[in-house]
């Protein structure tokens, strides 16, 4: 149940959540009083010709209206306060929980999916909650009061209401599941339709290049037609409910009129009076209107339940990486070892291992090149070092201790990774660099940039280090972004530096200068460099060749050339050429 979990987040808005229905009940109470006063104005004021009575009761009515207004406004404002507050708390809790997610958790949710949960789904729940607070008590209380009054007047006639009520409830139970089933079929179709619009908008060049406009339009129309059919089917069932409701109301009214009239006349206006009959008829409307309200609340809750469930998924997601109890907060040195390591993504759900039986000993300060074909699990291997994922079997050691023993923040500050998918954030260049070290001075930043060969273009920027970075770093070229990301990682002053294909868009000469700077400026740092270009790794101390998750070779460039076939093959395919043309700079 999504809602149950979601309601836990009401927290400090409990008071508002309680006041809202109470205010609504106040409004309902006034709604019940006002007709009495109105009748009194007509019967005892106007027909009796008493102006003072009209004024007196009129004053009471104004008072009742004011009290009702107070109730109504309080309901509005507290209801809005409670629901907007719940929405705020939901977003906050989700966001905070997302921050604790491990990489494995992040992989399970797509970015778009998380954004939808944090925005659209929260808004749905917010609206449903507001409706619930305002109506869920108002409607039943109004109905119960009316029912009690009816039974007080004449139990026999009032029992007709119960029959009508029972009939309607039964009908609702038949209709609602049918429609909600159809709607739950329709909404994914609707999402899919919008997804296809999205696809066509972003891939319009492909559509036009292959002259597929007509075919895409046809496909869209077919999907749109199917959506139309299912919506029409669902709504056709839903629209029955209103006339059904009216039919019940009217039948009840006529039956009561008939029985009531006979009762009045037969008893000579004693068992039931004409005034009482009028009141009974008025309550009839009241009861059935409230029932309709309840049905609406019910529909709203069912419809937003899917959203609540999706929100609960994020809230309930537990990070599968946790800090140890007595964490080690210092990393001795930059040595890295793998002992019998196997690793599978989604191991629990039966994921196949992508790394098998890896054994490595890397000394502190060594430079290691890593190469292998796409899918040979280079990235998976290095991700285990800073514990972005946990191993499935075996252990990974940094500075002689199992990575699981370290405080996560300590470990990740000492093992600096430049991810394959580089992300810069909107802000200035300097702000982005300071992600590596919050209190870094401009000098420190420029030193890191110099090592990463980023200084040469930053200095040429009109704003220098204060230049704005657009969302996703879209105003920088791929090579520039990569160098900024390297500088950012260097600012952490790590003991282990991992570059995951981080210079692919940097030209060969600059790439070489970056490596030279690493050699000269930070000789004590263990460096692991994943690259496609042999030139980027051939001067490493040792090169690790991966093939389908296994170590196929781990030796120097010269030795590998001699006796490693995979390595030789790649090398031969690359000799003569030394690099890329684009992104020069």
């Amino acid at each position: 149940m999504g809602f149950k979990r979601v309601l836990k987040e009401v927290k400090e808005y409990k008071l508002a959540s309680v006041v809202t229905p109470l205010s609504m009940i106040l409004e309902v109470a006034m709604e019940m009083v006002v007709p009495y006063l109105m009748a009194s104005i007509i019967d005892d004021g106007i027909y009796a010709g008493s102006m003072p009575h009209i004024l007196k009761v009129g004053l009471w009515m104004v008072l009742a209206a004011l009290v009702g207004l107070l109730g109504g406004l309080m309901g509005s404002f507290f209801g809005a306060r409670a629901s907007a507050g719940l929405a705020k708390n939901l977003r906050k809790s989700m966001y905070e929980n997302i921050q604790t997610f491990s990489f494995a958790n992040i992989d399970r949710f797509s970015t778009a999916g998380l954004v939808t949960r944090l925005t659209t789904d929260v808004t749905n729940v917010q609206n449903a909650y507001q409706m619930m607070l305002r109506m869920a008590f108002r409607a039943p209380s109004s109905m119960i009061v009316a029912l009690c009054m009816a039974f007080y007047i004449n139990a026999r006639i009032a029992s007709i209401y119960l029959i009508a009520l029972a009939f309607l409830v039964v009908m609702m139970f038949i209709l609602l599941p049918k429609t909600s089933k159809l709607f739950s079929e329709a909404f994914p179709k609707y999402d899919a339709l919008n997804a296809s619009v999205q696809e066509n908008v972003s891939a319009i060049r492909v559509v036009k290049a292959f002259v597929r406009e007509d075919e895409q339009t046809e496909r869209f129309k077919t999907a749109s037609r199917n959506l139309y059919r299912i919506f029409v089917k669902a709504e056709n069932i839903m629209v029955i409910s209103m006339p059904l409701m009216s039919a019940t109301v009217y039948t009840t009214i006529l039956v009561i009129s008939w029985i009531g009239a006979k009762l009045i006349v037969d008893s000579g206006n004693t068992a039931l009076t004409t005034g009482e009959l009028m009141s009974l008829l008025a309550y009839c409307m009241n009861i059935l209107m409230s029932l309709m309200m309840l049905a609406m609340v019910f529909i709203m809750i069912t419809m937003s339940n899917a959203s609540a469930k999706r929100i609960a998924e994020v809230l309930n997601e537990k990070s599968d990486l946790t800090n140890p109890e007595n964490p080690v907060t210092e990393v001795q040195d930059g040595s890295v070892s793998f002992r019998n390591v196997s690793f599978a993504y989604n191991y629990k759900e039966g994921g196949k291992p992508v790394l098998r039986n890896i054994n490595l000993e890397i000394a502190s300060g060594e430079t290691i090149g890593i190469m292998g074909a796409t899918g040979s699990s280079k990235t998976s291997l290095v991700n285990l070092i800073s514990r972005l994922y946990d191993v499935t079997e075996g252990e990974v050691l940094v500075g002689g201790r199992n990575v699981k023993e370290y405080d996560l923040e300590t470990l990740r500050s000492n093992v600096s990774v430049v991810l394959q998918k580089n992300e810069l954030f909107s802000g200035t260049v300097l702000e982005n660099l300071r992600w590596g070290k919050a209190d870094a001075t401009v000098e420190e930043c420029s030193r890191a940039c110099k090592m990463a060969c980023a200084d040469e273009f930053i200095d040429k920027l009109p704003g220098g280090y204060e230049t704005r970075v657009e969302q996703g770093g879209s105003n920088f070229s791929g090579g520039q972004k990569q160098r900024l990301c390297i500088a950012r990682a260097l600012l952490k002053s790590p003991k282990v530096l991992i570059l995951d294909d981080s210079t692919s868009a940097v030209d060969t000469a600059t790439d070489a200068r970056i490596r030279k700077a690493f050699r000269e400026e930070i000789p004590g740092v263990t460096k692991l460099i994943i690259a496609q270009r042999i030139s980027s790794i051939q001067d490493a101390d040792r090169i690790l060749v991966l093939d389908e998750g296994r170590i196929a070779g781990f030796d120097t460039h010269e030795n590998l050339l001699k006796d490693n076939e995979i390595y030789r093959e790649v090398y031969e395919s690359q000799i003569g050429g030394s690099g890329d043309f684009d992104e020069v700079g």
Partner: protein
Amino acid sequence: MARGALGRPRPKVNNPGLLFRRIMGFVFRNYKIHCFVVVICIVASVLCNLQGTLFMRNLIDDHIAPLLLVKESGGVVSYDALLQNILRVALFYALGIAASLTQQKLMVNVTQGTMRDLRNELFEHMEQLPIKYFDTHAHGDIMSIYTNDIDTMRQMISQSLPQMINSGITIVSVLTSMIVLSPIMTLVTLAMVAVMLVATKYVAGNSSRFFIDQQRRLGGLNGYIEEMVGGQKVVKVFCHEEESVEHFTELNEALEASAYKANAYATALWPINGQLGNLSYVVCAIVGGALALNEIGGFTVGALAAYLTLNRSFNMPINQVAQQFNSIIMAMAGAERIFALMDEEPEADNGYVLLVNAREENGQLTESTERTGKWAWKHTHQADGSVDYKPLQGDVVFDGVDFGYTDDKMVLHDVKLHALPGQKIAFVGSTGAGKTTITNLINRFYDIQDGKIRYDGINVNKIKKGDLRRSLGMVLQDTHLFTGTIAENIRFGKPDATDEEVRAAAKLANADTFISRLPEGYDTMLTGDGANLSQGQRQLLAIARAAVADPPALILDEATSSIDTRTERIVQEGMDALMKGRTTFVIAHRLSTVKNADCIMVLEQGRIIERGTHDELIAAGGKYYSLYTGNQIAE
């Protein structure tokens, strides 16, 4: 999904009358009769219900009271008249319910059908728009037209309009009765209605102001979440969680504040107007009482009682109309954006030269209805209607081409080049030099400002766009895949391709190996732009998609950049085979590609500054040389 509209203020609708007519025109196009019947049904159900109300009002006076008198005087009580009247009213009720059921069922069709038509027309029109439209409009904004704007229109058509008609009829009939009873009292009621409208204007104005504010803040928060969650792995790697939460909290709280106000005002309208209605009742009772008791203007006590009941039923529909007003304004703003898209000029195509299958007989080209594997340009001369056939070869000439995305800023200057059939032309140069722009012009994604582009000697403006593009295969840097199976995605290049052709194309692109390893092979479903594949695999599919089309010319925007060197080499072999005999324009990022080119164009700031083969350019020792040796860093 409902993301695009966020952060945009609701614009003022310029010509609401015209816009409304246009919306209705759209509804009426397929549902004129439906709408006519709907209006009749609404009128019928209002009238039928009126019969019921009248019966209730007169039940005591006309039936019960006389019967009581009969009983008191000892006469025989007969309920026949009452029964008859009840049955008559039951009939009216039944008719009313039937009418309203009919109305609602018809409205389901009208609403959903109109939505379907709107979506279809929007999509069909959108597919015809030039690339420029997509390059100059935020994709989120386009999406929000399909989701938010269509949804507000749906609400207006399905709920607001019928409600307005219904309320309108009630208002008119009640108002007439009120005027008949007492014109003076009617003025009192109308004065109170004016107060209600002023209150509505104030409350609804505040509410929509805060709603706009809320949407703007939601948009801001949305952007922040997207950026931070998108870069969540970086956040983790840099242990930046706390700062991230801190900033989020600021945005989140600001959003809550405006959401609270927007919703508070929006829900306050109903109680305020409801209680003003009660106030109106009291004022009328007092004024009417003063009139009736002093017998001013022939206003009787009975008339006042009747008038007060009418006053009550007058306020209800007024309140309903006030409630609908806001949603109609929202819908109009949405409709304006919907029609703005529909009014966008579609891609112009005056081409009349067609691409046809050809067969050669006695040295003469003739048109063929079958796929012959040989293509020709069918050139119908406009002057005399005579027809020429020219073989499709892939000879491309740029003659003094100037181009800018806007007229005031040119990005290409005086570009001249000649690609002979089967030649491979490589473009190199730094980002922003104009490489991609050149390839955008050959297939006429954009039209040039000055100069000429000729394809097999024909000015590309004369070739029908679809045929021109069919003759050019394309592999883009950003691979875009579609929801569907792998086979369907490859078949995108040629819809009638057989399974064998699909497999052959995949083999050529070296995609067959990885596809075969997938549990469901070619039937594997791809979703979310092929998110379940690696970047390299997606590119292999994009290459296969181009290969299956078997085009005579190719445009490659270096598709191999994230495939590892081993795979790349195998792909390269396949691509070389594909390129054989085809004119190829390639935006090169890789050395091996450049080296194999027949001619390399070095671009800088929109001009070709050097051209020649690899060896020639190296020997020349110019820009290309410095790019190649990496001795100079050009920023």
